[in-house]
Structures are given as structure tokens and as C-alpha cells.
């Protein structure tokens, strides 16, 4: 039950409350650059969601299998050269950035080949933006969030497993798509507005993005309310603080039973 609650809360938080674009400011470049037409923005959002999920799968697998201390693959390889205790302490997390950027670049290459083969029209409309997904901060940000939830956790039971990571990545991509599609809808109307000359283009887009971020701040606190609503009733009752009178009553009853 708690596992499911965690998954739902991660999804909700990534998509709406801590939206990648409007809360963490990652993926601003396509947010400003591509969001002129709704259909293109939606296609870009889908591509990013797809790449981000693949990259999250790769980065979670590599982190747990190779990078963290005591990871199966690295300690197996090091076992040929070192003693067993020394091999299980090999820590490769310092290489994580290089490994992540490499896995992202290769998955973008894969998506590019796939889209070029099966959706040539979409491929043409993306143009130069498809390879630029490699340098989209949102994807590296998802990988880093997963890493920070796998590597540095105090309690090993709290470390994320594969499904947590995939949920964060997929719904982060969905949140990115939501933000960029809303923005492109607004921008299609902005074309017809009478905007002061210096503000045309990026400046007014940023101001509108600020107002959009302001409205997304309205989701703050939804997660704690939802967690309370979804936790089973008897658990909630256990953590509720007792009134002083009730405590006295319980003590009195226990005292009475002792006698």
C-alpha cells in the first residue's frame, strides 16, 4: 500500500507540483524556442518524454549495477585484481556525469534513427531540435534526481527502485509536455496581441511563463493532503497526538488494572 502511495505521489509531484519547467527551470530552451505552434510543441513533448524514460532506465541500471559502492558488476570485475573486501568498496560515482551524458546522447541517437525511419514528416518538422534533445537539461536533471535518491540515502530501504525512477522520468516528461503545450497555446494568441516593441519575442514569453508558474504554485500542498487521504485510517489514528485528558484516562485505567 505504501509503495503504491509513494508511486502516485512521485508521479503527481513530477507532473504538476514540482513541474520540471515551471519549478526547477530545466528545459527552458525548448520552452522558449519550440513553443510557437501547438502541434510541434506536443511532438517535442512526446519525444522528450520518450527519451527521458529511456535515459532514466539506463541511468538507474548503470547506477545500481556499476557505479555505487558494492555494485554487482564493478565488484565482480574488481574481484579479479583485489581482495574481496577491497572490491566491494569500489566507488565509481565520480564518473556518473560522464556516464549519464553518454547514455543520453546514445539514446537520442536511437530515437532520431527511429523517427527518421518511421515518421519522416515529424522528423522534417523537428529539424535541428531533435539532436538538441541531448542538451536538454530536463533529461540530465531526471538522471541526477534518480542518482541522488539511489546513492546518498541514509536508510538503504528508502533507495528508489526501478519503478520509482521510471515514474519520475515519465511523469516529469508529461509535466514538461503539459507546460510546453499550454505555453504554445498562449503564444499562438500572443501573436495577435499588441505588445510593446522591446517585449516582443522572448521577453513577453518569460513574463507569461512567470504567470504560468504562479498558477502552478497553486498545486503546492496537494501532495501532503493526498498522502493523508490515502494513508490507511488505523495508521492515521496511531500517529494522532492524544489529548492530555485522554492520556490521563489511559494512565488511570492501566493503574486501575495493575491494582
Amino acid at each position, binding site marked *: 500500500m505504501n509503495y503504491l502511495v509513494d508511486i502516485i505521489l512521485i508521479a503527481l509531484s513530477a507532473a504538476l507540483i514540482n513541474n520540471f519547467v*515551471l*519549478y*526547477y*527551470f*530545466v*528545459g*527552458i*530552451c525548448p520552452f*522558449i524556442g519550440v513553443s510557437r505552434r501547438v502541434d510541434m510543441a506536443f511532438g517535442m513533448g512526446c519525444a522528450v518524454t520518450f527519451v527521458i524514460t529511456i535515459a532514466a532506465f539506463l541511468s538507474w541500471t548503470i547506477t545500481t549495477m556499476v557505479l555505487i559502492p558494492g555494485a554487482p558488476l564493478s565488484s565482480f570485475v574488481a574481484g579479479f585484481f583485489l581482495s574481496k573486501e577491497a572490491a566491494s568498496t569500489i566507488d565509481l560515482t*565520480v*564518473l556518473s*556525469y*560522464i556516464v549519464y*551524458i*553518454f547514455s543520453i*546522447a546514445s539514446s537520442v541517437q536511437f530515437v532520431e534513427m527511429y523517427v527518421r525511419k518511421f515518421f519522416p514528416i515529424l522528423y522534417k518538422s523537428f529539424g535541428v531540435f531533435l*539532436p538538441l534533445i*541531448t*542538451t*536538454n*537539461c530536463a533529461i*540530465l*536533471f531526471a538522471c*541526477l*534526481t534518480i542518482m*541522488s535518491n539511489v546513492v546518498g540515502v541514509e536508510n538503504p530501504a528508502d533507495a528508489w527502485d526501478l519503478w520509482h525512477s521510471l515514474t519520475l522520468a515519465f511523469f516529469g516528461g508529461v509535466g514538461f509536455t503539459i507546460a510546453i503545450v499550454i505555453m504554445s497555446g498562449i503564444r499562438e494568441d500572443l501573436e495577435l496581441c499588441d505588445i*510593446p*516593441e*522591446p*517585449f516582443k519575442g*522572448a*521577453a*513577453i*514569453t*518569460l*513574463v*507569461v*511563463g*512567470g*504567470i504560468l*508558474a*504562479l498558477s502552478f*504554485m497553486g498545486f503546492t500542498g496537494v501532495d501532503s493532503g493526498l498522502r493523508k487521504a490515502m494513508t490507511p485510517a488505523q495508521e492515521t489514528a496511531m500517529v494522532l497526538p492524544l489529548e492530555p485528558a485522554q492520556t490521563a484516562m489511559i494512565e488511570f485505567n492501566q493503574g486501575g488494572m495493575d491494582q
Partner: protein
Amino acid sequence: MADQPTASERFLQGILPENPVYRQLLGLCPTLAVTNGMKPAITMAVSVAFVLVCANVVISLIRNLLKPHLRIVIFTLTIATFVTIADRVLAAYLYQMSKTLGPYIPLIIVNCIIICRCEVCASKQSPFIAASDALGQAIGFGLALSSIAAVREILGTGGLFGIQLLPAAWPDWVIMVLPPGAFITLGLLLGFVNWLGMRKSGGSI
């Protein structure tokens, strides 16, 4: 290469005429994320400057070995190496600041400014010109970051570097240090810079 600008021209161009934030609209993620105070903004600018100069010099040294279709991968791997160095140094000497900046230091890897400078300048020119270009862009980036951070911190908390500047009656405008304030401040400053540029060039407003 007679038509290429010289080193000093490159250096000056980066500071105002081709300012990475206000003119080219590059590197907006850290610009928006770390400018809620002056200290994180300056730390960020210094780390970006370090990575930018080192990556530009290295790319410029190996520019004759680069294959065109592999260059982006080489760029990102070079940048990732220097970002790892910067991240470890920050974690060792400025632990609290590296906690505050969080994932935005590793996100320098995908910062468009550095990739753009590698592509435009370093992969074509000698190390000295590349270094001066990188230095100019880094100073321009630092000026842009500190201008945004100054506006946000003064309006948001009434002080700068934690020193109270505005009278105590000033109500803290908390929204300025929250995410929406970043978008709105940058949008308004961008409009202001555009307006200055238009007035200078004699355009009609």
C-alpha cells in the same frame, strides 16, 4: 583568417554586444534557478567561467582531430570532465554552497553557452583567441547573473549579501525569490535591455 575578429574584439563582444543571456538567450536554466541570491549566483558564474575557459582551450587544442559527426559527443564529454572537477572542488571547499546549488552544477554540462562557444569559436581558432572569447562570455554571463540576482534579492528580502539595504518597513516580496519571480524578473530585464538597444540604434518606439 582576416575576417575573423581578433582576441580583444572577441573578449569585448562577449561582455555586452553578444551577452549570452540578454542577447543570445543561452543558458537560461541556471540563470533562472540560482539567481535568488547574490552568493549562489556568483558561485555559479565562477564555476561556469572555469568550465568554459578550460573546455574552450582543450577543444581548440584538439580542433584538427575532430570528426564533424562526432564533435557534439566530444564536446559534451570534455565539458563533463571539467564539470566533475568543478563539482568535486565545490563539494570539498564550499560544502554548504554546493548543497544549495544542488543539481545545477552538474547541469552546466548541458549549458548551451559552453556548447555554443565550442561550436562557434573554439573548434575553429587558436587556443589564445578561444580563451579570450571564453573569458569575455563568462564575464558577460556573470554580469547578467548578478544583475538578475541583485534585483531579486533586494526586492525579495530587502538586502544584498544578507546586509539590510531597504528600510525595515519594506515588506519582503517573497514571490521574487520563488520560481515565478525569476521568470518575471528576467522577462522585464530582457525587455529593458531590448529597449535600451533600440533607443541607442535610433529605432522608433
